[in-house]
């Protein structure tokens, strides 16, 4: 089904003349069916035949090339083998899925064309595509629209109409800041839904400090952010300053190359600031095993493995992890290259740093000064007291006092002071000073000042070791089987690494953010697209390799990637360009006439309806009920959750719900225990933070219904919403219904919708607020409420 669908599409979406048959049609078949045994993995290669590179690149003897590929399919041994009748002769082997007739036909055509190979599309640096000529020239608002429309027109499909102003406003609020527009904002836009007004809204939202929260949370998925260590003990950790850093960086529109560099190697920049060191928390989000009896080296290596895999998935869209144990089965990535990347990460210590604010720093200095003034006085007193007075005191120690002493102390005091060992002297001095009132007075004075020291926030960072470690390849990925020594480096199939042989994380960051890199810009703009359309242009957003899906709109992808570089890696400018496009602003309603040709909407003949992310479902509830505390940043918070969840892991913990406004903070600040995560986040598909997550799944289950219907947090929000409705200054119930509907859905209700809700209202009793409670619950449970249309 997969390739049938994909092949259908490839034909569908490749504008005439631009099709690269090898990349689009042939390689997917070879990769799926042949590369496991005839691909890059030399250890498991069969019959010394390699099909993933052109035979002349593999130094294959020319008569063998001739025999295998022939001059056309009829004279090719490859064709003979894939069409052999005998099970023993036919390829792929009979225990593997067979080639379809269509697939065989594509191979035959390719052989007839002389079996041309070309470089994998994703490994060629993107360039801006030529602009197509269009029929419906008034539709495009932006360049990318022209490219999307060209594909639609080549399939004789017209784009969907513009979504209603209400939908477009709610959509862009949810996508850019994850908070609902107010009724006033809706009304004002609906009154004047001009292009100019829309652009103003977009610019306002991009400038909002909530933008950094909404897009920061996307990034935290990639960063596998959590507030605990994972594995069995799952102790808590403090790394929220890194989360704050992400939010700030996105709000400032930090250029993406700098964004990478500071997170991978902020500490290695010249005159690194505190913020730049905090940024290295990106790779400290790995789990830590605190279980007894572990081999610490094993889990140090596990962390680095996770860092390499994350680097591959997040920045390169490559499945590097396959090459941990053996050469990659599909992509030209070799095991030695895996450990070359590993080597960049192998020279660090994992430390915590304290983060005093300037005020705190000044305060600490003042306090230390006070202490420093008192210490000499105490020390002088002590120096005198432990001479004669101590010897005298020994004689006065009563039996009653002695009873409370331990064995060592009793032994000491039973002998002459002149015979005491250093340890005995120390023990008795301690006892003596504890009993000396004057000394205690001086000591307490110091202690009480010490207590005034502020408790400083900490965060987890990377720090380069003075002595580099030697990195060795691990046979089969087993850390106990060390093989050849490797030095830092990058996969040869990509742009060259120009750093030094003992390269650091900084050199890796420069390589990743190099304009020559064919992947990073594409992978990132693809992910932004995914967040704005519910699916990337390359659907397999973490696999741009041979097994990944092909881009549905290669020109759009390349245009945006090139544009990303042209804007100086400005994330906000790319997002702005996308949300201002006609493509983005289309209606998301299903188009039954396209059910057969494009049921999944790969062609973008409309927008997609996308269920909100777990955290945003909480945020919109809080924002509709006017409960939301919009404070940005800081440590994790504890909204209510059902009892007993924290008993499901090894360590049974308490969860004391916040009582103040922290109870109503945005979902992204909910304290995240990896072994016992907050249930209403998990039920709506929040990532588990064990490994990087570059795309969330979106399930639709009865447990979600139970959560929205019955969970205490959502019940509290429904109560607050009911109160908001009942106390609203409208004369009639119908006006109030209208108001409530606008609050939650940002549009006026249809008559049929008013009818359903007013019937529900009629069935309720009690005071005003409790009468509105069922209506409030209903609105917060609607599919439309938790969906961005």
């Amino acid at each position: 089904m997969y390739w049938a669908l994909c092949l259908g599409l490839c034909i569908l979406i490749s504008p005439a003349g631009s099709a690269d048959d090898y990349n689009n049609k042939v390689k997917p078949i070879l990769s799926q069916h042949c590369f496991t045994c005839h691909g890059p993995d030399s250890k498991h290669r069969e019959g010394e035949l390699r099909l993933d590179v052109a035979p002349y690149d593999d130094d294959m003897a020319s008569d063998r090339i001739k025999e295998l590929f022939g001059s056309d399919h009829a004279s090719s041994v490859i064709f003979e083998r894939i069409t052999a009748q005998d099970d023993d002769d036919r390829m792929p082997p009979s225990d593997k899925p067979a080639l379809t007739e269509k697939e065989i036909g594509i191979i035959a055509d390719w052989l007839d064309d002389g079996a041309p190979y070309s470089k994998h599309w994703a490994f060629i640096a993107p360039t801006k595509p030529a602009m197509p000529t269009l029929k419906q020239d008034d539709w495009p608002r932006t360049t990318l629209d022209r490219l999307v429309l060209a594909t639609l027109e080549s399939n004789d499909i017209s784009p969907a109409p513009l979504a209603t102003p209400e939908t477009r406003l709610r959509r862009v609020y949810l996508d850019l800041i994850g908070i609902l527009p107010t009724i006033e904002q809706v009304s004002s836009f609906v009154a004047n839904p001009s292009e100019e007004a829309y652009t103003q809204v977009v610019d306002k939202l991009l400038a909002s400090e909530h933008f950094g929260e909404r897009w920061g949370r996307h990034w935290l998925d990639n960063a596998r952010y959590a507030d605990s260590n994972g594995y069995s003990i799952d102790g808590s950790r403090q790394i929220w300053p890194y989360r704050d850093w992400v939010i700030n960086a996105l709000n400032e529109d930090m250029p993406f190359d700098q964004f990478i560099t500071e997170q991978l190697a902020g500490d290695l920049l010249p005159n690194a600031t505190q913020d730049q060191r905090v940024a290295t928390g990106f790779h400290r989000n790995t789990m830590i095993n605190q279980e007894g009896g572990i081999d610490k080296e094993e889990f140090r290596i596990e962390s680095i493995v996770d860092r390499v895999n994350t680097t591959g998935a997040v920045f390169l869209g490559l499945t590097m992890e396959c090459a941990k144990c053996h050469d990659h089965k599909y992509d030209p990535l070799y095991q030695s290259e895996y450990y070359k990347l590993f080597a960049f990460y192998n020279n660090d210590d994992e430390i915590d740093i304290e983060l005093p604010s300037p005020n705190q720093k000044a305060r600490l200095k003042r306090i230390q000064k006070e202490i420093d003034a008192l210490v000499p006085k105490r020390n002088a007193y002590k120096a005198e007291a432990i001479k004669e007075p101590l010897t005298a005191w020994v004689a006065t120690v009563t039996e009653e006092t002695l009873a409370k002493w331990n064995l060592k102390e009793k032994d000491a005091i039973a002998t002459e002071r002149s015979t005491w060992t250093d340890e005995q002297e120390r023990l008795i001095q301690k006892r003596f000073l504890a009993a000396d009132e004057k000394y205690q007075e001086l000591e307490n004075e110091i202690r009480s000042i010490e207590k005034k020291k502020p408790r400083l926030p900490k965060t987890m960072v990377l720090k380069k070791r003075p002595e580099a470690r030697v990195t060795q390849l691990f046979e089969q990925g087993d850390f106990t089987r060390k093989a050849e020594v490797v030095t830092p480096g990058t996969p040869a199939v990509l742009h060259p690494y120009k750093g030094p042989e003992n390269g650091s994380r900084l050199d890796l960051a420069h390589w990743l953010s190099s304009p020559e890199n064919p992947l990073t810009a594409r992978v990132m703009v693809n992910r932004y697209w995914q967040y704005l359309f519910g699916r990337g242009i390359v659907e397999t957003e973490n696999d741009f390799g041979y097994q990944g899906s092909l881009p549905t709109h290669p020109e759009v992808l390349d245009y945006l990637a090139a544009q990303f570089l042209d804007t100086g890696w400005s994330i906000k400018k790319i997002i702005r360009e996308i949300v201002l496009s006609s493509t983005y602003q289309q209606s998301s309603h299903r188009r039954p006439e396209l059910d057969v040709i494009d049921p999944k909407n790969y062609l973008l003949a409309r927008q997609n309806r996308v269920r909100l992310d777990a955290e945003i479902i909480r945020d919109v509830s809080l924002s509709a009920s006017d409960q939301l505390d919009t404070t940005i940043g800081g440590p994790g918070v504890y909204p209510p959750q059902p009892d007993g969840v924290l008993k499901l892991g090894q360590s049974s913990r308490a969860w004391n719900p916040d009582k103040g406004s922290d109870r109503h903070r945005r979902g992204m600040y909910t304290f995240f225990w990896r072994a016992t995560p907050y249930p209403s986040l998990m039920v709506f598909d929040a990532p588990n933070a064990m490994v990087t997550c570059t795309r969330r799944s979106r399930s639709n289950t009865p447990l979600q219904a139970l959560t929205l219907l019955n969970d205490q947090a959502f019940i509290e929000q429904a109560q607050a919403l009911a109160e908001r409705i009942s106390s609203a200054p409208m004369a009639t119930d119908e006006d109030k219904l209208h108001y409530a509907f606008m609050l939650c859905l940002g549009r006026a209700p249809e008559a049929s919708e008013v009818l359903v809700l007013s019937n529900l209202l009629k069935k309720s009793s009690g005071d005003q607020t409790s009468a509105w409670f069922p209506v409030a619950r209903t609105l917060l449970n609607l599919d439309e409420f938790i969906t961005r249309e």
Partner: protein
Amino acid sequence: MSDAPYNKALHDVTRRHFFKQCGVGLGSVALNSMLGNESAADSNLRNMGIFNGQGQKPAKALNVIFMFMAGGPSQLELFDYKPVLQKYNNQPIPQSYIEGKRFAFMDSFGNDGPPKLLGTVRDFKQYGDSGAWVSECLPHTAKIVDDISFLKTVATDVPNHAPAKIFMNTGSGQFGRPSMGSWINYGIGSESQELPGFVVLQSGPRGPRGGQPLWGSGFLPASHQGVPFRSQGDPILNLSTPENINQDEQRNVIDAVNQLNRNRLDVTGDGEIAARISSYEMAYRMQSSAPELMDISKESQATLDLYGVKEGEPSYAMNCLSARRMIERGVRFVQLYHTNWDHHGGNSENLSDKLDEVCHDVDQASAALVMDLKQRGLLENTLVIWGGEFGRTPMGEVRDTIGRNHHIDSSTMWMAGGGVKAGYTHGETDELGFSPVDKPVHVHDLHATILHLLGIDHEKLTYRFQGRDFRLTDVHGHVIEDLLV
């Protein structure tokens, strides 16, 4: 509205439900897939022999109950009788045994010289027609030896708890892979329309090390993850309607939600809304079916006595009884965790009274579950599995008392029903109980066998993630043919 678009829309999304629309189990997933409803990047179900006729296997088991003894029960105190080990008690183990081996706590075998062997003080006898050895610790299990099969040589790869538990559940020591129960529900769906297809129950002094990832769905859709049922309070989180809301009001709200959702479905045509509507209906049904499931008041006194259940008291025994009730209601995979089997010899987990305690907690009910399933005719179609994440060393470990360290080379598990032989012992360890000498079994083989018994070819149940077709058995695993009926 007419039913047609509604059904079409519903059909499109139905796969991602953990409640299948049709209770046909086998083949329901396949059907959808053949109709082309898979997302391109979603799965690779087409490779599954289940529905394309290649490698199709008749299922012996329809359900699985996995009794997970968390911590690693000592096979040498329970099943693996080693008189030679007793004879050489307190003698140093020959270096050849431990050369190049990894143990969790290398430093606590004792300070003087190589680790010393520890013979058990437990009394072993042979039971039943099969003559299986069982120690005094498990008198009830001793009574069912002719109904079960012992696997004496189960090996794993990793010697620490959390990674080993993850390994036993997901076939990988690294976090983030789907668990067995998720794979199975993904592969063949659930028979229940009112309960989740994968349920997790817990007992013992604490939760299992690792927590949620042990029953997580990894890269499979979240709808396949295990749902913990609790023995006190709501069995499922947020199951009951809050106290201040009466049932009529709850029904009215759900009706209004569904009506408005239907309006929106008409306007947008989005099948997700149809799925949301059925989710709300099923949630409402669950509000009565889940409490009914957990309500054991209609069970006979004889049944309660068989398990050793005391009403109103959460226990492993209660969980065993619930497990039977769940599979009767079509739950595909039930996993029971009982903690504190980590008998290093510390005061809370020693090989004397503390081992007695956990054995007492689980022995009667584990045996009762097999007997009860058998007498109800359910054992034939239910695969019962008993075991932990790894075994324990033949060498003693010096803590407050002498205990045993984690051991990955061999442990004993037992299985019953669902197409597994009765009264059979598979494999044998050496005289000291260190390594297999006959028929070694790896966790991957165990997984391959479990899937096989459910009618699934473990090499064909795959999911495309990051460009690779992942399997529960990774690239390993052989079905243990000798174990099959």
